[in-house]
């Protein structure tokens, strides 16, 4: 039976649309998008969306689902459940599983598990190098054929610039983007948090902003050299924003994302040795936070992605230095990002572009728009509903969230994937 979503405000940046529209879903596709009342309701399932915002399904282009190998932290099913609960109809999952997703068989396994879960769409990102060890190129052609949408050695960045050059060229051969985790591991050394006043006071080894920025510049240079498609992951510093802004201004093709924690928290969150604030890249300073917001506002940064990185108490309930990097974000990403809209940093259209339209374009996947004929991936938002972050209610298997107890304004109330309601609060 077809589904008519009526009375809502449709925000679809791909069509330059932000007005009242009724949306008809039929057979897993968007069948029609018309002014209010224009689509007859008889014989259809009706959904009253008055007071709600209707957007193309949100896409989180950077998550870690931990399966295969670390199912005690997250599975593809639990991660996909967290995704749809957070308003995401699709996620792109990083390859740092065990084994690493560097072969078509692992890529296919991920897709099979995602299909079995039947919740969010899951797009595997495959490894740049075999085992993400930075030595040899993995089989990009095979990986693409199996369903990989991009390549990344996220978390274990490619240190060898020659390998990075070849990877960009080889990825170009198959039309795949490379998502670069920009970090110079030698400069990071033993660092565990941002190098600044807080690291000095806490006696924790610092990671300078330069450890990120030198690699952002290197990879942008290599993208220019090769003409390949480069996407910079989780931008966290003032300097990185400046470099990317410059690159775009001179016509270098590069895209970039940031994560909600980089515009919501600073290194002050580490005080008290809170391991949930231990994340890579590090939480930076207020100056960096301001630059990230500016970068989102002027389009230097194309996407917001959570870098959802589940860890259990085994990795987090330990001394700060021994704790794993990473925090979970699928269920808070939208609420934290909506704060940028409430604070007039971004328009709602900009936010939807950064959380749906642009990720779809960068990854070359369907969705990101409500144009008739598109997959019926839709998120319904209540912009004003206040809610409190409570990790005990999370669908994710992990609890490593530094936002526990925060009050946020606005959340997803319904998530529809391929015409099927996969999460609903009604």
């Amino acid at each position, binding site marked *: 039976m077809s589904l008519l979503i009526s009375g809502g405000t449709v925000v679809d940046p791909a069509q330059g649309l932000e007005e009242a529209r009724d949306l008809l879903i039929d057979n897993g596709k968007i069948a029609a998008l018309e002014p209010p009342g224009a689509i007859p309701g008889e014989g259809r399932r009706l959904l009253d969306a008055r007071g709600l915002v209707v957007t193309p399904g949100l896409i989180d282009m950077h998550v870690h689902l931990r399966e295969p190998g670390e199912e005690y932290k997250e599975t593809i099913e639990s991660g996909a459940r967290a995704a749809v609960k957070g308003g995401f109809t699709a996620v792109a999952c990083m390859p740092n599983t065990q084994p690493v997703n560097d072969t078509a068989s692992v890529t296919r396994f991920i897709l099979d598990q995602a299909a079995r879960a039947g919740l969010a769409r899951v797009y595997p990102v495959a490894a740049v190098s075999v085992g993400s060890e930075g030595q040899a190129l993995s089989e990009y052609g095979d990986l693409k054929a199996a369903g990989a949408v991009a390549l990344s050695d996220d978390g274990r960045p490619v240190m060898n610039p020659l390998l990075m050059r070849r990877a960009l060229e080889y990825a170009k051969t198959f039309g795949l983007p490379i998502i670069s985790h920009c970090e110079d591991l030698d400069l990071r*050394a033993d660092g565990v948090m941002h*190098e*600044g*006043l807080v*690291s*000095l*006071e*806490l*006696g*924790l*080894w*610092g990671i300078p902003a330069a450890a990120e920025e030198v690699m952002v510049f290197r990879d942008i240079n290599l993208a220019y050299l090769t003409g390949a498609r480069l996407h910079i992951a989780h931008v966290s510093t003032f300097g990185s924003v400046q470099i990317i802004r410059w690159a775009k201004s001179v016509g270098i093709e590069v895209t970039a994302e940031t994560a909600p924690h980089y515009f919501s928290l600073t290194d002050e969150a580490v005080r*008290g*040795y809170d391991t949930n604030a231990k994340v890579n890249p590090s939480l930076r300073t207020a100056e960096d936070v301001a630059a990230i917001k500016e970068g989102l506002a002027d389009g230097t940064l194309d996407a917001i992605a959570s870098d959802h990185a589940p860890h259990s108490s085994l990795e987090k*309930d*330990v*001394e*700060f*230095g*021994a704790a794993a990097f990473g925090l979970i974000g699928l269920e808070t990403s939208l609420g934290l990002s909506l704060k940028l809209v409430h604070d007039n940093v971004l328009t709602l259209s900009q936010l939807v572009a950064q959380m749906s339209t642009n990720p779809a374009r960068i990854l070359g996947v369907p969705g990101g728009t409500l144009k008739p004929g598109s997959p019926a991936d839709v998120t319904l938002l209540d912009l004003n509903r206040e809610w409190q972050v409570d990790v005990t209610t999370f669908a994710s298997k992990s609890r490593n969230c530094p936002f526990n107890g925060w009050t946020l304004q606005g959340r997803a109330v319904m998530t529809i994937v391929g015409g099927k309601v996969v999460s609903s609060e009604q």
Partner: protein
Amino acid sequence: MPGRGAGPKAVDRELLTPRSERTHMEFRRKDLLGIADLEAGEIRHILDTASSLKEISTRPIKKVPTLRGKTVVTMFYEPSTRTRMSFEIAAKRLSADTLNLTVAASSAVKGETLADTAANLQAMQPDLLVIRHQASGAPHYLARRLKCGVINAGDGIHEHPTQALLDLLTVEEAKGTLAGLKVAIIGDIAHSRVARSDIHAFTKMGSEVTVAGPATMLPPYLETLGVRTTCSLEEAVTGADVIMMLRLQLERMGQMFLSTLREYSVNFGLAPRHLALAQDDVIIMHPGPMNRGVEISPEVADGAHSVILEQVTNGVAVRMALLYLLIGGEKEG
């Protein structure tokens, strides 16, 4: 004393006077984790208590019953001679029962987590845990989980608060005051928990602190802590009342912080010629153990200005004071 008296932070003058006649404030802390958390008044109280307890160590029978029936556990995840001995002697002079857990003999080598080790200790109901750990923040981690008090005996590159307190006591005994003194701290500031604690301690008590070392060992933002920084040993010691030399951790040699020990010694080793630049009555300090001939020449270490062994003596007094303040007597509420 205009000029010299102007410390980097505004300080209540009364607190800077030793053995003041003020009624002692209650020391209500469960733990001593760092100098950064302490108020100047609390530091004053600890120093005064240490002074009054010092005499016990000079008696023929060096023992008072104050902490009889209390159990103090020392847990050292890093090698230590003087700090550990100092705590043990302090506890014994106050009649506490002491138990020393060494890493090699403990479960740490069997892969037990710090939290589990602590929980097991807690189950044996000690009154106080003294911990040294290679991870910055490890004592804070334990203090949040344990009912018993925790004293930080050095955590990673973060703090070594009892060292700073004994340094304050030693300087105050030699100089009669802390306010307005010029204190130079020389060496690897970046990786020194002694430096961090001393910087907090001396600035809180109204001293003017200058730190010096090669730029590889001076972390950014140091000035934010209220100190002056320089890469010149000569500049730092000029006019100094107190010169504190830090131990050069030799493992830094392999980590690109320095070229050679020889060059470090030439540029940052304290030699007799430097003393002429300082105040006539300058005192020389070192937290130990010393690398003689590296950061300090034997002539200076053993010379008339050296108070290095007084530091060790005062270490016992300060630790007795802390044990007494944390677990001596009844605390209401």
